[in-house]
């Protein structure tokens, strides 16, 4: 089916407009509100809306500008026949519809509508409120504004065309097998059976045949294990009885043997014990004999030891006595020599003392002469000091006669003088000066006469009289002159007062006196310094002290009466005498030391001799004591043990030998019996017998328990039970194998059904997917693929896979807005291509502003896609407010004029003629 042209009258903005469509590609351009959408809507209404439709649908079609009923005249071609359908939408039941076949008959009204229905293969929409239904007619071919990005698989919007597509796919030669009802029913049973038997994890469900078989096998195995355990217990009990029988029998045999051994051991042990008693008695006798022999022999040895010791002590005493005698003689000689040395030492000491006193006298005499010599110098210095004191007194007196003007005073006076001169100068400046330059007669000023050439200062009203004239001169300045006068007088008074205070007449005198005072004061200070340098009053005191010392020395020497002392008369003589006697004194001191040393040596020798003598005496005393002790001990021992000691020793020796021999015989007999071993054997045998008894008792107890276990309760034969359990196990295992095989078979069936279903579904949609991909490759490259999900008689998913997007399959809803528009367009084109076979191989498809989200770079791809659609026989009609975007499409372009009220014909390739209606009609609209 192809649209050839449409003429609309009184349809919204259009008064009358004819648009001719290209067979393949038409672009209808024009600005907003040019009525592009109205044109294609009118085509849609002509095809699907009954002319008698009313209500909102009709109202939306009526023109506000043009009176008259909306009318559409559509010429189209179908199966090589050209039809023109004309509908006048009057809103009444008599609204006319005609369907004219070119070169043939014209059908009217219901007949026309019925024929049209056959051609477009859909129902007609009419009545009120049918807009929604209307929009769903050929929804896949009419991409209304705003729905271009909608999911083309949306069943609400696309149900009818998708159903039609599904049916068409099923009849395509290139694929299109579909699941039958039997397939579905068997497949459902297979899936349900498998799901009821097996979990998703592949494990059999508990209530499935295999699950029950598994449980039965487990239960049977448990029963087998229990039965085996029961038999095992019985067999263990039998084994226990047999084992304990052996233990009991062996224990009994062993017990008999051990008891016989025990009896023999007991007999030997009694024998050994008897020998042990005897051995103890003999041991005591032997010990006593040995003690007796030892005592006798010991006493004899002690007496012999004492005698030997006495002889030895006496041998040591003789040389010691001789050494004592020699020591006494040596002590006496040393005493004599010591007394002589002591006397000589004392004589030298006395002589030394006497010479020492004489030497002191000579030293004092020498000192006196030295002090006398020192006094002469000191007396001269005291005389010089007295002279200087007299010169200083004269200078002091001269200074007292001069006015006491210091440099500070002089400065002070000068300051006062400058103050007075300043006060005067100030007064002079403000006072009135009068100077008599020349006069013939006397001029008197105030109380005195003015001299020629002399100026005077007037500070108060002063009369001036000259040549009979009397003038009074009044100085200006008010009280300032008087104040200046007072200040000048005060300064002058202060200067005078200061001069009087210093005792000078004026400042000049003061300036003359002050240097003179400075000169005198310097001379006076020089004298005082010289006096101080000579010692001043200290020199006087020294002289007095020296005189006192000299007097005392004189007194001392004057009283000396020693005959060997003669007082020297001069310092040199005194010094010589003192040195001579000092030398003698040093010599005599040496002698004193020598004799003292000799005396000390003699005393040491005496002490040594005394010590030798005392040591010899001590040794003699010790030896004598030792000798006495030995003799007393010997005498006591002899007294105690008598003189017949040899006989006693012989008798004791014999007694001991006899006792030892008896003891040895008993010990030999005892060793043969090994009593310790006998005792250990007794303990060992006792232990063994006890253990045998214990083992036997334990075995008897164990046997009793085992026999009791063997006593058949009799309601169940454990071997029978085991046989039953094993049979049940075999049956259960067989059933398990069968159930497992069945379960695997069901799983296999379920898997194959799922696989084959998916396979035919994929095969079913393959022609569609390949066509969609063919369009999208124009946009996304040669490797782009499309996947269309189909399950349960429904198209479920639409996914695009692009190599430049990493080969990831993106679901339609995850695409961008632009991509959604383009993928949806591709899907619609593919649908149209497949469905076109029912319409003579061609269908129109309208895109009304369907690619508004496409970026400029994508436009070329979109045009290639549309061109491909045209190549496949589709009639593509694109509406765009910017038809230049589709320049590269090579399409026929129809450009509607800008908003206005149109009337004219829009032929392909030319702009529609301007509207013929008046502007007033437009304004009136």
């Amino acid at each position: 089916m192809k649209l050839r042209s449409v003429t609309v009258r009184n349809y919204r903005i259009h008064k009358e407009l004819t648009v001719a469509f290209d067979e393949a590609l038409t672009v209808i351009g024009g600005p907003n509100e040019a009525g592009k959408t109205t044109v294609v809507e009118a085509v849609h209404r002509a095809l699907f809306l009954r002319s008698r439709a009313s209500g909102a649908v009709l109202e939306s079609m009526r023109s506000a500008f043009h009176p008259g009923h909306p009318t559409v005249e559509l010429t189209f071609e179908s199966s090589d026949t050209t039809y023109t359908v004309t509908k006048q939408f009057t809103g009444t039941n008599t609204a006319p519809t005609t369907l004219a076949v070119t070169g043939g008959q014209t059908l009217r009204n219901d007949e026309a509508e019925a024929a049209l229905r056959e051609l477009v293969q859909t129902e007609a929409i009419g009545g009120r409120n049918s807009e929604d239904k209307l929009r769903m007619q050929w929804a896949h071919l009419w991409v209304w504004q705003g729905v271009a990005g909608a999911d083309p698989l949306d069943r609400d919007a696309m149900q009818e065309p998708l159903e039609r597509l599904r049916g068409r796919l099923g009849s395509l030669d290139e694929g299109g097998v579909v699941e039958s009802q039997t397939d579905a029913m068997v497949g459902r049973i297979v899936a349900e059976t498998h799901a009821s038997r097996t979990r998703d994890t592949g494990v059999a469900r508990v209530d499935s045949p295999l699950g029950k078989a598994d449980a039965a096998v487990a239960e049977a195995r448990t029963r087998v294990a229990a039965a085996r355990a029961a038999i095992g217990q019985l067999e263990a009990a039998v084994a226990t009885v047999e084992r304990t029988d052996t233990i009991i029998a062996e224990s009994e045999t062993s017990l008999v043997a051990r008891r016989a051994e025990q009896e023999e051991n007991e007999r030997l042990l009694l024998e050994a014990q008897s020998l042990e008693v005897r051995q103890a008695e003999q041991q005591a006798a032997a010990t006593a004999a040995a003690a007796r022999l030892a005592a006798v022999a010991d006493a004899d040895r002690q007496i012999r030891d004492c005698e030997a010791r006495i002889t030895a002590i006496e041998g040591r005493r003789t040389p010691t006595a001789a050494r004592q005698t020699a020591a006494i003689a040596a002590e006496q000689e040393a005493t004599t020599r010591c007394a002589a040395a002591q006397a000589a030492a004392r004589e030298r000491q006395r002589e030394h003392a006497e010479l020492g006193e004489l030497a002191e006298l000579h030293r004092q005499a020498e000192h006196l002469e030295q002090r006398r010599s020192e006094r002469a110098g000191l007396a001269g210095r005291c005389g010089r000091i007295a002279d200087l004191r007299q010169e200083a007194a004269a200078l002091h007196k001269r200074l007292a006669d001069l006015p006491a003007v210091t440099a500070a005073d002089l400065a002070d006076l000068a300051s006062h003088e400058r103050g007075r001169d300043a006060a005067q100068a100030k007064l002079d400046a403000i006072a009135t000066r009068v100077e008599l330059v020349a006069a013939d007669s006397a001029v008197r000023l105030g109380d005195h006469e003015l001299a020629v050439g002399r100026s005077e200062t007037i500070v108060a009203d002063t009369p001036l009289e000259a040549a009979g004239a009397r003038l009074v001169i009044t100085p200006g300045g008010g009280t300032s002159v008087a104040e200046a006068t007072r200040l000048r007088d005060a300064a002058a008074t202060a200067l005078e007062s200061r001069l009087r205070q210093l005792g000078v007449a004026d400042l000049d005198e003061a300036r003359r006196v002050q240097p003179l005072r400075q000169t005198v004061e310097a001379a006076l200070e020089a004298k005082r310094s010289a006096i101080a340098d000579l010692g001043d009053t200290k020199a006087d005191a020294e002289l007095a002290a020296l005189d006192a010392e000299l007097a005392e020395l004189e007194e001392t020497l004057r009283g000396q009466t020693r005959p060997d002392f003669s007082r020297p008369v001069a310092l040199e003589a005194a010094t010589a005498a003192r040195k001579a006697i000092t030398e003698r004194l040093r010599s005599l001191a040496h002698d004193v030391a020598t004799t003292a040393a000799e005396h000390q040596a003699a005393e040491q020798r005496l002490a040594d001799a005394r010590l030798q003598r005392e040591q010899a005496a001590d040794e003699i005393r010790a030896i004598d004591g030792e000798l006495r002790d030995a003799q007393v001990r010997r005498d006591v021992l002899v007294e105690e043990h008598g003189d017949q000691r040899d006989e006693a020793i012989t008798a004791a020796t014999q007694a001991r030998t006899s006792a030892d021999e008896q003891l040895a015989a008993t010990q030999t007999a005892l060793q043969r019996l090994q009593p310790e071993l006998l005792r250990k054997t007794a303990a060992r045998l006792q232990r063994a017998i006890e253990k045998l008894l214990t083992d036997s008792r334990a075995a008897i107890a164990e046997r009793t328990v085992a026999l009791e276990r063997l006593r058949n309760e009799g309601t169940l034969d454990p071997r029978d039970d085991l046989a039953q359990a094993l049979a049940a196990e075999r049956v259960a295992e067989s059933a398990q194998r069968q159930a497992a095989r069945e379960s695997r078979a069901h799983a296999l069936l379920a898997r194959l059904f799922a696989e084959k279903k998916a396979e035919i579904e994929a095969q079913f949609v393959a022609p569609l997917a390949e066509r969609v991909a063919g369009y999208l490759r124009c946009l996304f490259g040669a490797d782009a693929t499309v996947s269309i999900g189909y399950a349960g008689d429904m198209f479920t998913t639409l996914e695009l896979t692009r190599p430049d997007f990493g080969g990831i399959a993106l679901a339609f809803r995850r695409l961008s807005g632009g991509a959604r528009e383009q993928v949806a367009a591709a899907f619609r084109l593919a649908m149209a291509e497949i469905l076109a076979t029912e319409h003579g191989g061609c269908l129109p498809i309208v895109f009304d502003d369907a690619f508004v989200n496409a970026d400029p770079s994508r436009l070329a791809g979109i045009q290639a896609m549309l061109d491909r659609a045209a190549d496949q026989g589709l009639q593509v009609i694109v509406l765009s407010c910017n038809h230049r975007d589709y320049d590269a499409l090579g399409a026929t372009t129809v450009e509607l004029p800008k908003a206005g009220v149109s009337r004219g014909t829009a032929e392909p390739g030319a702009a529609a003629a301007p509207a013929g209606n008046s502007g007033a009609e437009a304004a009136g609209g």
Partner: protein
Amino acid sequence: MTTFIHTADWQLGKPFAGIRDTARRTLVQQERIEAVRRIREAVVARQARFVLVAGDLFDSPTPTKTVVAHALGVIGEIPVPVYVIPGNHDHGGHGCLWEQPFFLSEHRTRAPNLHVLLEQTAVERDDAVILPCPLLQRQTASDPTAWIRQLDLTGYADRPRIVLAHGSTGTFGSQADGEDVAGPSNVVAIDSLPLDDIDYVALGDWHGFRQAGPKAWYAGTHETDRFPKAGQRPGQVACVTVSRRGMPVVEPIATGRFAWVETTLDLGDDAAARVEETLAAATREAGFDRCLVDLGLSGRVSLAARRELDRVVESWSHRLLRLDVRDEVTLVPSADEIRGLVDRADDPIISRVAQALVHQIEAGEVEADDAREAVNILHGLCQQAEAAE
């Protein structure tokens, strides 16, 4: 001349665990008691002087009191002395059933004619000397008859000497029966016996009636208890007439009633019919309710034939006392069946699934058996679906 009945291996109380149905298992167990009653009839008919039971009177050394009570009750009905030795199944020894208070009590009160020979001591009768060789353990390494070789038999004069023993002669002995693992075999060295001084050796352990030596016989079990080996003749007792230095006269007497049938079939698509015919023929004589059958099936059958075969087998499994099926039949869908599944233009999924399964079966992969089972299931589901339509 002394006539007696030689029997053995009654194995009363045998569980027959392979029979899953309790009622039928009880029937088979009870028949072993009834067979003892038929021995009593033989005793009476042949005027036997006594009965020798050569071991394994009970199946277990720990039979239930019920089994003991039934056994001693029916033994007590026998009008002559019954001599029994323990065998490997009901061996003596510590805690053995022969010492159990209940057994002793029942023995004393209800079967005083029963003589349990637990010692290797000759039992002297006026008409015979019985030389018992009891087994006091399940397995013994020594020859139970060894003591006889040491025995001075001269004192027994002209009385026939009868050895009563249980074990293998080296050629014959107990064997596994599918339920009971073959136990350790106790060897009876009959060739070492002083045969000139012995007149008959009454043996137990081999379940068929069979001569084991010049004077030695196995009586076999009195009622068949397993699928017999070829040539084995169970279900009989021996009626023996002996005299000192004479060769014994031994005659088998049938006492068993149940038929244990073992057969194998290689099947094709007529599997059900063949099984039906075969089992009908095999059980005709004894009667289906007295038969126990071991059926080995092999061959290749179609899905439909398999279904029919299963139906027939199920029917027989309820008719017979016991039916063991060793099923090694391979399921091979027929060409029509395969076509019926694969050639479904209107059911593309079923068709493709069937193709995949057929491919797996033909490839003989590990999962081929699973695939066969799956084909079977699919076939059934399709039939159901078609029936629903």
